[in-house]
């Protein structure tokens, strides 16, 4: 079983310090980077699959050169090797370019499954994994809550989250799967894993190495942020500390005033 997992370093949501810089791009120095949540759920699912079925998990990341650090954690969790596409020309890359670059890099690797997050905590576009599937012409099984490959039959089954519960999907491998938190909590790298990661290989590629026409012409990204402002502040609320019955009365008054009861 060969599983390639796309991981993106994002500002750590727990640090709660994400912000846009003066160039209206995400200020990636403002907080430490971690692997995007949904990508990590995918990585965990992949590691469990190869533990059960044999095989190997590899990581694919498009990021500045410092992206190597978050890749090390993925290697420490058990991935065997990494591919990093790092190129100054990709700073601030838009969604179509990201899709093209990741697809081109993935095409250099052999895999049965290509995993990506359903979306990222910084961009939240939710388009990249699907876009990569389109570029590669591979089936897309999205919003995965459970992944079950059948190696002998060369198919994969995925439970896809739906409004009412889940749908059970099936497609031939190789296939692209976008991952959700329902796949399960990622393991913390074991100390042995951290030390073993030292000797694992991260291959760095530039845009030129990928060949082809991956960048839009013109020197500027077509998609851009024109302006940013803070969210509208809410009017200050009221705090009450009272005995339960009195508190209940105040809440009910509040609701009644607003015709909510």
């Amino acid at each position, binding site marked *: 079983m060969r599983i390639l997992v796309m991981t993106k370093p994002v500002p750590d949501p*727990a*640090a709660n310090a994400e912000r846009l810089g003066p160039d209206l791009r995400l200020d990636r120095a403002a907080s430490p980077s971690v692997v995007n949540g949904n990508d990590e759920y995918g990585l965990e699912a992949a590691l469990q699959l190869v533990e059960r079925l044999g095989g190997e998990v590899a990581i694919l990341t498009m990021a500045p050169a410092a992206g190597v*650090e978050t890749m*090390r*954690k993925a290697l*420490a969790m058990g991935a065997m090797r990494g591919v990093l596409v790092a190129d100054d020309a990709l700073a601030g890359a838009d969604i179509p370019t990201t899709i093209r670059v990741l697809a081109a890099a993935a095409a250099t690797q052999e895999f049965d499954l290509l995993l990506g997050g359903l979306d990222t905590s910084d961009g939240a576009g939710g388009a990249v994994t699907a876009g990569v599937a389109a570029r590669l012409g591979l089936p897309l099984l999205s919003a995965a809550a459970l992944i079950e490959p059948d190696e002998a039959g060369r198919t994969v089954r995925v439970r896809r989250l739906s409004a009412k519960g889940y749908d059970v999907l099936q497609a031939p491998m190789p296939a692209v799967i976008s991952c959700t938190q329902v796949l399960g909590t990622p393991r*913390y*790298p*074991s*100390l*042995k894993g*951290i*030390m073993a*990661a*030292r000797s694992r290989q991260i291959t760095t590629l530039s845009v030129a190495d990928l060949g082809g026409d991956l960048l839009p012409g013109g020197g500027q990204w077509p998609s851009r942020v024109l302006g940013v402002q803070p969210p509208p502040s809410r009017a200050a609320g009221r705090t009450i500390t009272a005995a339960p019955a009195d508190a209940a009365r105040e809440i009910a008054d509040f609701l009644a005033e607003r015709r909510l009861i």
Partner: protein
Amino acid sequence: MTHNGPILGSTRLTEEQLLLREAVRVLADERVAPRAAAIDREAEFPEDMRQLLAEHDVFAIPFAERHGGLGADLLTLVLAIEQLSRACATTGLLLAVQSLGAIPIQIAGTEEQQDRWLPGLASGEKLIAFGLTEPDAGSDPSGIRTRAVRDGDEYVIDGGKRFISHASVADYVVVFAVTNPEAEKPSRRLSAILVETDRPGFKVARIEHKMGLRGSPTAELAFDGLRVPVGNRLGEEGHGFAIAMQTFERSRPGIAAQAVGIAQGALEAAAAYANQRKQFGRPIGELQMIQALLADMDAATEAARHLLYTACDEIEAGNTHAARWAAIAKLVAGDTAMRVTTDAVQVFGGYGYIDEYPVERMMRDAKITQLYEGTQQIQRLIVARSLLARS
């Protein structure tokens, strides 16, 4: 608590050390910290913590890869002890004593001896203790009376030890015994001999009731006609004292790490309390006297930490003055832990004195770092002599 950790620049730690520190920190916060109060209250050896450290390869840190270890350096070991001790000094000591007991094997053991004993220690399956101290031999090792008499291909050991951490739960104790009573220099009289604790003649005479580190059993041992193969001796006869001194160069930083960890834990608890506790209409953290206390506590802890990390780098690099580095780090860290925990209790006021809050335990735990692995007075002697020799 997650982001209250020391603001440690990644400039001085490698990526790997950062990852490892983080992994142990999470383990400490999630699995060790919730047990700390009970471990102290019950005063029983925390077997579950021992399992936890074994499962998570924490014991493997100071051992070479060929023995099943992680092959990590001294600073990495110190990072782990510090993070564990932040949550529970007793649990931190599990790692510190394991590494302490193994050092004589690592520095003086033959390859065969290392292959025989180290893998079990690295996996945490076996525990080891370090048996130097005796009732009449604390700071002064020339008072050691335990005798190991050669009889054919065995030694017969008679005597006893006191204040040996974990000896009652250990599988092995490295016993320092007199094999060369006639040697001219007192420092050539001892040998280091590894004793398996299930041998007849090995007895745990008592376990001490201590001020702090109450989950860590501190044992008095009695050896009565205890026979061990000559093959259990580490290094040559008469080299025991040198082995012990060399051991301390690498083990004292571990105790310093425990001390820095205890201080950090107390500091964090005090800072959190200062943010919450309201008197005179506001959090006490807004009062300048509290701020002054906390600032001094933070500065002292940070300074002790960086001195310790520097000492680790120097010792690992084979600095000729390794003994001085180990001593100076342990000296500063131990005094810092005592001071910071005492001040932490002060920040808590009356609440700091009761076991509803952890700082009274931390203060009791801190004291031992000024006493064992060489008292602060011994450390001062080492530092002063080194300074004067260099002057």
